[in-house]
C-alpha cells in the first residue's frame, strides 16, 4: 500500500439534485431527514442506483430488502459499509462479514452469551448505569440526552460484559466515530481506528490467557470453532471488533431517537408514564420507525431483485430503515403508533445475519426508557438547542438538548 497522500484522497460529494439516479446517504439533506427521500425513491423503483461509491444499488421496499437479505448466493457480506473506496479486505469481523458456509459456526460461538436469559443477568447492572448517569444531570433541569445519557449506556454495558473498565468507553466511542462516520470518506481515519482498537483488545486477550475469567473475552477464548479447534486470535479480535462497532452507536442511536420522539410527543410520553407495561411494544415501534442501522452487501453475481436487474461489482445499501417505512408492509408507515400490534419490522435485519445483539439492545432500551421515565417523566426539546443527527450507516441523534423540571 502506498503512503502518498493521493492514495487516500477521496472525492468530494457534490450536493444531490437527482435522488432517484444519484442518491447519496452521506448528503446533509439525507442525514437531516431521510424519510421523504426514501418515499421518492420507493415511488420511482423497488431498486435504485447511484454512480457514487463506485456504483451502488439501494432496495427501497421491504420486499426488495428482504430478497437481498435472504440471498447469500448473489450478495456477499464481506463488505458491510458502503464507502467511497473498496480497499483490499483486511480487518474482518466475523460473523457479520462472513458468508455461508463460514458464517454459521462463527455466529454460533457468539449466540449463547446474548440470549434473553443472559441479558436478564446483565439487567441490574444496566439499570444501575442508567441511574448513575441520571444522577449526574438531574439537578440541572436540562441536559444533552445524547451526550450525557444514551451515549454511555451501551458502551458501559458492553465493557461490563467484556470485563474491561467501563471508563474505557470514551476510547470505544472515538474508534467507532473514526470507523463508521469519518471512515466512509477518510481511509486514514478508518485504519487508525481499527489499529488502535486491535492493539487495545490484543492486550486484553493476552491478559485473559493468563487469567481467564467468566467475561465474554474469556468465553470466546474457551469457545471451539469448526472442527473443535479453539478460535484463532485473529477470529476473536474480529468478533470483538464487531461487538464494539455493532453494539454501541447502534443502541445509542435507537435510544436517542426514542427519547427524541418522546420529548416532542407529549401524548405518547404521558401514556408510557401511565402505562409502563406498554413500553416494550412502544420500543418495537421506535425500532421500526427510527431504525438506526443500514447495512451493505456486495453484488457477486448478476441477478434480479423485485424485477430489477442488478450487476456484479456494485455495492448495495441495504436500508432496513427504509424497508420499515414501506406502506405496503406497514399501515400508516410514517406514523409512530406506540401500541402497534402487528410489527414485523426488520430493524435487526432479516435472515442469517440477524443482529446477534438484538436481545441486548432491547434490554438496554427497555431499561433506559423505564428508568428515564421514572425519574424524568416530563421533559421536552430545548427550543434554544439544536438536535443533530449522525451521518452515514447508523442514524441517531448526536445532540439532543432537553429541558425538564429541576425537581424531577
Amino acid at each position, binding site marked *: 500500500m502506498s503512503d502518498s497522500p493521493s492514495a487516500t484522497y477521496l472525492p468530494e460529494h457534490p450536493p444531490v439534485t437527482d435522488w432517484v439516479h444519484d442518491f447519496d446517504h452521506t448528503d446533509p439533506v439525507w442525514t437531516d431527514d431521510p424519510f421523504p427521500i426514501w418515499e421518492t425513491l420507493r415511488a420511482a423503483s423497488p431498486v435504485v442506483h447511484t454512480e457514487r461509491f463506485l456504483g451502488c444499488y439501494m432496495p427501497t421496499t421491504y420486499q426488495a430488502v428482504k430478497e437481498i437479505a435472504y440471498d447469500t448466493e448473489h450478495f456477499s457480506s464481506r463488505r458491510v459499509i458502503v464507502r467511497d473506496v473498496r480497499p483490499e479486505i483486511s480487518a474482518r469481523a466475523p460473523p457479520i462479514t462472513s458468508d455461508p458456509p463460514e458464517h454459521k459456526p462463527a455466529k*454460533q460461538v457468539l*449466540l*449463547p452469551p*446474548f*440470549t*434473553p*436469559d443472559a441479558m436478564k443477568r446483565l439487567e441490574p447492572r444496566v439499570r444501575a448505569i442508567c441511574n448513575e448517569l441520571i444522577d449526574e444531570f438531574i439537578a440541572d433541569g436540562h441536559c444533552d440526552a445524547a451526550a450525557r445519557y444514551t451515549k454511555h449506556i451501551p458502551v458501559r454495558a458492553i465493557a461490563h460484559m467484556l470485563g474491561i473498565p467501563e471508563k474505557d468507553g470514551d476510547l470505544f466511542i472515538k474508534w467507532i466515530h473514526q470507523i463508521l462516520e469519518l471512515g466512509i470518506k477518510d481511509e486514514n481515519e478508518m485504519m487508525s481506528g481499527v489499529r488502535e482498537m486491535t492493539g487495545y483488545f490484543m492486550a486484553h486477550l493476552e491478559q485473559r490467557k493468563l487469567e481467564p475469567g467468566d467475561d465474554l473475552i474469556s468465553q470466546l477464548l474457551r469457545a471451539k470453532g469448526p472442527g473443535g479447534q479453539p478460535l484463532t486470535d485473529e477470529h476473536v479480535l474480529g468478533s470483538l471488533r464487531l461487538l464494539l462497532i455493532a453494539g454501541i452507536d447502534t443502541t445509542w442511536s435507537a435510544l436517542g431517537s426514542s427519547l427524541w420522539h418522546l420529548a416532542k410527543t407529549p401524548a405518547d410520553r404521558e401514556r408510557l408514564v401511565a402505562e409502563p407495561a406498554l413500553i*416494550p411494544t412502544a420500543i*418495537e415501534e421506535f425500532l421500526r420507525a427510527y431504525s438506526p442501522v443500514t447495512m451493505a452487501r456486495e453484488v457477486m453475481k448478476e441477478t434480479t431483485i423485485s424485477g430489477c436487474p442488478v450487476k456484479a461489482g456494485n455495492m448495495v445499501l441495504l436500508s432496513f430503515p427504509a424497508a420499515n417505512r414501506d406502506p405496503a408492509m406497514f399501515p400508516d408507515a410514517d406514523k409512530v403508533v406506540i401500541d402497534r*400490534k*402487528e*410489527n*414485523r*419490522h*426488520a430493524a*435487526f435485519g*432479516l*435472515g*442469517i445475519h*440477524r443482529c446477534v445483539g*438484538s*436481545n441486548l439492545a*432491547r434490554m438496554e432500551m427497555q431499561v433506559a426508557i423505564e428508568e428515564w421515565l421514572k425519574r424524568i417523566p416530563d421533559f421536552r426539546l430545548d427550543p434554544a438547542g439544536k438536535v443533530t443527527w449522525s451521518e452515514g450507516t447508523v442514524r441517531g441523534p448526536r445532540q439532543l438538548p432537553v429541558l425538564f423540571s429541576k425537581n424531577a
Partner: protein
Amino acid sequence: MSKLKIRVDQDKCQGHARCKSLAPELFELDEYGNAHEVGDGTVPAGLEDKAWLAQTNCPEIAIEVTEE
C-alpha cells in the same frame, strides 16, 4: 373456538425472540436463542390471542398457526 397448534420452522427461525417475549407460555429458546414451540405446540385455551400475536410479529414468518 377451535383448538390452535403452533410450530416454529427451524429453517426460518433466526432467533429474534419476539415470540418468546410476546407469548412466553408458548415458546422456549434453546442455547442459541432460537425458538421452539412448547411441548407438541398445542395452544392452551385462553392463549389463542398470544399465539396469533407471536405469529404476526415474527420478522422471519417462521411461526405456523393451524386450527385443528
